[in-house]
């Protein structure tokens, strides 16, 4: 018997020697089929997506969008505060927003203030030629002879 050939071709050894409790197989089929019924309640398989699910996803996206819009820094406000020197000059010349003008003037550098004054009064030519290095160029360009 120790030779495997005797084991391999022994019909007695191939017999099923295990038993099951009484009526086990009678109930088994019904019990196993319940698996599908019970699992359906938890995991729908290949069921068309319900409207409720679709709507809940859509609502989540809408809520996310609304929240991001509400909390996001307002770009329009930022643009308004970043006025160019020309805008400030225009506002100043027209007499608008005295307080705002004062505020911007106080916060501008000297060069920027110069620029505003020049634009407003159109003294640019005069100031340019007051620069020592530019005086000669000015006379040459203007074709003025002494």
């Amino acid at each position, binding site marked *: *018997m*120790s*030779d*495997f050939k005797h*084991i*391999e071709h022994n019909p*007695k*050894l*191939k*017999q*099923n*020697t*295990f*038993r*099951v*409790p009484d009526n086990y*197989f009678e109930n*088994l*089929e019904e*019990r*196993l*089929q319940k*698996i*599908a*019924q019970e*699992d*359906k309640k938890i*995991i729908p*398989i*290949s069921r068309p997506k319900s409207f409720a699910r679709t709507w809940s996803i859509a609502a989540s996206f809408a809520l996310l969008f609304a929240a991001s819009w509400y909390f996001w820094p307002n770009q329009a406000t930022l643009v308004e505060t970043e006025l160019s020197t020309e805008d400030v000059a225009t506002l100043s010349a027209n007499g608008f927003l005295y307080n705002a003008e004062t505020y911007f003037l106080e916060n501008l550098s000297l060069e920027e203030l110069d620029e505003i004054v020049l634009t407003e009064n159109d003294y640019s030519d005069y100031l340019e030629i007051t620069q020592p290095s530019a005086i000669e160029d000015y006379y040459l360009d203007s074709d003025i002879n002494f």
Partner: protein
Amino acid sequence: MHKDIVILINSKKFTEAFNLVVKTYNKRLYWHIRRLVVNHDDADDVLQNTFLKVWRALPNFRSDANIYTWLYRIATNESLTFLKKKRQDVNYDDVAFTIEKNLEADVFFDGDEIQLKLQKAIAALPEKQRAVFNLRYFEEMNYREMAEVLETSEGALKASYHHAAKKIEAFFKNH
């Protein structure tokens, strides 16, 4: 029967397909699992897990695949996972010893001395080798089908079965 099941799956009649699978294969899969895990209660648990996996995977079943080997693959994997978990609690020798002892005391085991000896020899095999041996010896499955079930090459399965046979032969000599 395979054709009927595939038609039902393709028609998305999954409950009907599942019921037909249960009706056709419940006993065969039970016995396959039982030979691997030995204890009836364990086999019953593993069988239920197997059919739960089958139910959930049914919509993804490829109609060109063989349902019989697909079911055996799920059942084998579930059994091996169960045995692996059991092995984590106690070491391998203890598991084999427990199976041997349980067989002797098992009221649901009917075998005589020589049949008990064979079951003890099988219980002493590593789990995957036990699956290979059972599929070939008791189920008389061919190597091509076994390769599909165990996702291993036919050559490796032949070698594995040969090793298992040698171990069983040695067990019979020494006991």
